[in-house]
């Protein structure tokens, strides 16, 4: 029987893979390693409220965020293009929504917030939720991280 950690990670891996394969037409694989191995300048955050209380953070370097935005839009992006932040926010939104839908029963009452995106990195990040998981992912050599706390 899988424990809570394994269940959460399996669902997260599935949600990430589904978003990348469907929206970016790229495969995306989980990496072994600690969350600190990823430079996290751009951070998107989604909050869960209701049956599940918690948050999902996606963080990436500027370079990875730009590549991600280009893959999603199909057009080149500028380094400080607001569409890059927007793309990272939407990616977090879809991953969080996918994870929630795989976790919650059909009749559960859980809403997710709109994404909030900052360029302050993850330094000093603390969560008020009791359980926290983090995972790194790579697509075509571009690494980003996801944190789930609930």
């Amino acid at each position, binding site marked *: 029987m899988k424990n809570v950690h394994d269940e959460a990670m399996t669902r997260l891996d599935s949600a990430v893979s589904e978003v990348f394969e469907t929206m970016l037409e790229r495969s995306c694989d989980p990496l072994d390693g600690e969350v600190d191995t990823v430079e996290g300048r751009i951070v998107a955050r989604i909050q869960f409220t209701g049956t599940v209380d918690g948050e999902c953070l996606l963080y990436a370097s500027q370079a990875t965020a730009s590549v991600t935005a280009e893959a999603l839009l199909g057009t080149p992006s500028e380094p400080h293009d607001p569409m890059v932040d927007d793309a990272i926010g939407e990616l977090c939104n879809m991953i969080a929504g996918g994870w929630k839908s795989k976790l919650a029963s059909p*009749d559960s009452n859980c809403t997710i917030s709109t994404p909030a995106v900052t360029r302050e990195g993850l330094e000093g990040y603390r969560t008020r939720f009791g359980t926290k998981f983090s995972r790194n992912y790579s697509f075509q050599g571009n690494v980003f991280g996801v944190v789930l706390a609930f």
Partner: protein
Amino acid sequence: MAVWVQSLGEGRLRALIVDDSAVMRKVIERALRQAGLELSEVLEASNGEEGLQVLRDNQGGSAPLALILSDINMPVMDGLQFLEARRQENLAQGVPVVMITTEGNETFVLRAIAAGAQGYICKPFTAEQVKVRVLPLLRTAA
């Protein structure tokens, strides 16, 4: 597919996309074009309130809207409130509405349908899913 869409009569269609993400509005527009829709104009709104204003501004025009696509989770006014307000103001009542959202929960689907949505697509989505859910609605509305 483009030939078939022209058989609707207008040939080219005007659509409204309501989503707080500019990236997602572009992605949805691209999916509509990949589905074979020849869009003459895509109107955009970043929340339900802006969407309502677009509908008000387009009342009685010579080129009516053919399709509305809306997210649910948005600031200011969400997609469900947008649909309710659209109904109360009697705006674009014959225009098919498809929700495109990360909210896959059945409760949201039922609420959207009750508020007037004819279609529901969960993000992430493929162009094929957009095609399958949107084109029959246009065929019915033609």
